[in-house]
């Protein structure tokens, strides 16, 4: 979480010693681990059954867990050849705002919401035919 806050990102890519991507830790997944599953499906139950200190306890329990217990192991990747619309479609479909860019099985970069934002701003520029 410190990494996410310090670097102002909402996710991190988990790699092994050979720089192969093994998973993604997203803010959504960390947040999901701090509340009971039932609350995710029923927000009103979360409002009706709150115990003071419960959230802090859940965060404390999560603090000592390994990254592997919350990371996503199934995720989309893109290659350098993929176009921006395919990447945007992935973002929207999977509710995940960090997509690893893989080339020859190695992590070469990531695409985040900032890149999507910049792409949209670029797409909305005046005189798009001049480029």
């Amino acid at each position: 979480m410190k990494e996410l806050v310090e670097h102002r990102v909402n996710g991190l890519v988990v790699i092994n010693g050979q720089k192969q991507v093994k998973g993604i830790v997203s803010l959504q997944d960390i947040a999901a681990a701090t509340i009971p599953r039932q609350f995710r499906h029923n927000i009103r139950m979360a409002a009706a059954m709150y115990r003071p200190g419960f959230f802090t306890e859940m965060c404390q329990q999560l603090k000592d867990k390994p990254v592997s217990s919350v990371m996503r192991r199934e995720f989309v990747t893109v290659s350098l050849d993929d176009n921006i619309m395919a990447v945007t479609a992935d973002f929207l479909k999977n509710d995940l705002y960090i997509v690893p860019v893989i080339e020859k099985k190695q992590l070469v970069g990531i695409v985040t919401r900032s890149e999507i934002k910049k792409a949209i701003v670029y797409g909305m520029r005046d005189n798009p035919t001049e480029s």
Partner: protein
Amino acid sequence: MLAELTIFSFISIAVLMVVYFFLITEKLPKTLVAVLGGVTLIIMQVFRSTDATSQDNAFHFISHNLDILGFVIGMMILVGIVRESGVFEAAAIALVKLVKGQPTYLLVALGYLTLFMTAFFSNIPTILILAPVVLVLIRELKLPALPFLFIIVTMANIGGAMTPISDPTTYYQAKTVGLSFGEVVQNSGLIVLILSVISTAYALLVFRKDLRATKVKAKDIALFDPRKAIQDRYILKIGLPIAILSIVLMVLKEQIAHLTGVTLDNATITIGASFAAILIFHKEPRSIFRNLIDWEIIFFFIGLFVVVGALEFTSVITSLAEWLVSLTQGRIEWLLFLIAMGSGALSTFIDNVPYNITMVSAIQAMERSGLWVYPLWWALNLGTSIGGAGSPIAAACNVIAFGQAEKEKIHVNFMKYLAVAFPLVMINSLVTFAVLWLRYLR
């Protein structure tokens, strides 16, 4: 007895055994097994007669049970819609506040909430609603998991015998045999109340150390607010009365028919009410059919109606009935004991739906042979419900409850659960036999 059996009888038995093999081992989904079993029997001409095709005769066993299928579908939709109001969760949270979260009282309260919800809304929807609430309570209040999962599973199962609408198999039996709502409540329902007291006392005794060791402070539940669980006040105001009206009509349908000549059946009542609810609340039919109707259960029943129907069509059921009567020398008290205890024990380990459907036909065959079978209906109904609480896999509602617990990393060991639950199955089965014997045979 065996002279009536033909090659088709043995094919029917073989298909049933294959179906049971896959039900027990869970190597294939049970719906697939039941339906493919039925199709196999039809293709092998098991149902063929001189005046009808194999399919026509087989489908007769389905068409005869459309009321049951319609009732199950209607209730799934109706309870699913009313559930969106949050009223059931609010009721559970209100009970938690009432007992101040104290583990012993909470166990009793949640157990009886489960029992009475099951009586009118059936056990699977009840468990789908209450299991999430119980699992949150286990985590938040650091309650011991096993006692609370045990009590809701036990009460959901025995509650299934309480009224004709509390479980599809109870309704199947009531409908097939012609037992009224009042008869089921006066016979099964009263015994269920006795069993609920025994089961609660058993749980309080067995889990007394775990319950006493858990301390819940008043401040832990101080911010619990049942009103906040209400999600949709419009559904609460309109949907809940529709559901209650449906239940009242199902309870009083015999009286209504007697007084007014208007005949109502459960499928019409529940399908009518649920589709009216879909209209009133502007629900998308497609999402209702996809999300609220458990088509696996529906097709599982359809398959079983054909598979067990084959046993009836080929005289296997008649032979089974004759064998049971000869085994007990036609003595009703021995049959009562065998069915009460045997149903309880068997239902712990095997899916009770095919067993129940088979035994209903067998007892009907006994009745046709001149035997008085009235107490046996209650022994069967109660025995299969009692046995359903015996193991984590014995009934669909158990699988749901323990499956949700697993997702919370709450693991209930099969043998540990069986060691706690099976003695209660035997006690409850014995009490059932004793009460029925005292009432009808003494």
